[in-house]
């Protein structure tokens, strides 16, 4: 059995009232921010199931917004985020969908990127879809995400560039729409890589999107 930390039962220090519906919401927002990594002027949240029905009483809406704006889980100004936010348009939609996790959200930034994730309990989260591609990011690793035209040899090209930096790859996850169609790759890393490396990956032929995602603070 994996040894756990005593801090799993005497933390996090967080703004209340719920680790799944508040702290988890903030972390989902933070993760979306880390993935998008660009200024945005518009964000829409689609809340599902329990997030949709009991989210308001737990400040899930505020938590999500505060997260994408970069507030940490223990920031007491999350409560007043609607009064604080300027220059960013935000909206919410509420849905029921039994195929989704009970605490699930889509975060749509600037109509350009849709990031879907779940709050899986005790403040832990999982991003499972980005722009239609399956993902598996829980914020515990620095991750390089790229999208490209599916073709042979891409994995070795990417890992070559990362290996040159002597960074260990913890895990790798690929998905594609169809053979030769659009594909995605997630490379989880033991230590963060510089944005210059991400730029180098972006220069590989047929790669059209790269983002260098920082892990979340535990």
């Amino acid at each position, binding site marked *: 059995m994996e040894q756990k930390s005593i801090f*799993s039962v*005497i933390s996090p220090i967080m703004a*209340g009232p719920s680790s799944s519906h508040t702290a988890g919401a903030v972390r989902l927002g933070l993760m979306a921010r880390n993935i998008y990594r660009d200024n945005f002027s518009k964000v829409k949240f689609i809340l599902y199931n329990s997030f949709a029905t009991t989210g308001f009483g737990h400040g899930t809406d505020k938590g999500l917004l505060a997260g994408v704006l970069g507030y940490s889980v223990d920031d007491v100004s999350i409560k007043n985020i609607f009064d604080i936010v300027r220059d960013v348009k935000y909206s919410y939609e509420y849905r029921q969908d039994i195929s989704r996790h009970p605490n699930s959200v889509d975060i749509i930034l600037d109509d350009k990127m849709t990031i879907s994730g779940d709050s899986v309990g005790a403040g832990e989260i999982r991003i499972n879809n980005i722009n239609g591609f399956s993902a598996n990011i829980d914020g515990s690793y620095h991750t390089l995400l790229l999208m490209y035209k599916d073709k042979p040899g891409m994995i070795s090209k990417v890992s070559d560039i990362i290996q040159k930096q002597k960074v260990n790859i913890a895990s790798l996850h690929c998905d594609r729409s169809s053979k030769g169609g659009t594909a995605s790759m997630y490379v989880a890393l033991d230590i963060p890589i510089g944005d210059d490396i991400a730029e180098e990956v972006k220069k590989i032929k047929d790669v059209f999107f790269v983002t260098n995602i920082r892990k979340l603070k535990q």
Partner: protein
Amino acid sequence: MTVLSFSDLNERCCRENKSVYQIALEEEALLQETAGEVIRLKVLENLLAMKDSIKHGLKSTEKSISGWCGDDCEKLRNGYKKRGALFGSVFEKITTYALAVTEENLRMGRIVACPTAGSCGIVPAVIIAAAEENKIPETIQINGLLTAGLIGLIISNKVQLAGAVAGCQAECGVASAMAASALAEMLGGSVKQILNASALALKNILGLTCDPVCGLVEVPCIKRNAFLAIHAVTAVELALCGVESKIPIDEVVDTLKITGQLMSPLLKETSQGGLAKTKTALGLEKLLFKNVN
């Protein structure tokens, strides 16, 4: 050797002649690949955040998001001023602090989940009230919180600490067992007494359901924190006098898990049964949803 059960813990404490908090410290330092002092500082940070949550909670009467809760702590403070608690000042402080923290949680204030946000008032209330009233120094309070951490961790190795999994026995119940272990440590209890205090606390809340009204961490959660904080003290009083749990704590934890499995899903955080389905709860639900949507 990793400590996965209470019998492991007991054996290790006996063999190495150490207390629970020393093992907690060693294990955590090993896990995080750092020095024990660094771990103590982290625990202190959490302890100070707990103290802050009490301080803020005592000052505020702001209502929760739903608008129903948030002023019970103030009622206690005023009431005790006029008429001291029958069981004295420690009792006053524990009940007041437990409500202060949970009410602070409801108004989206800063709290320490311990083990969860819904049960965040129990451990701080017991540790801090007892420390203030008995002039127990901060280093001993840290030892208490370390003890509570290891007790909670070992329980969580067997059962996930979530109302949705095992009802409130796994949230406020476990918080109460953690608080009992912390207090027993702070009052100089032996390893055996610490484990007995935890077992007695846990054994006497088996079957506690999770039925939050409207799915909010408010009713019954807030006041339950005050009750289970006092429950922890009862367990410690008995254990320090040498009363033993006839059923060893590992078996009590197994029972908690099985009881959680036997519990109807209607009573595990779904708000489909229990208090959440009472006439009053349904009326409030209607009102609340109308205000929001």
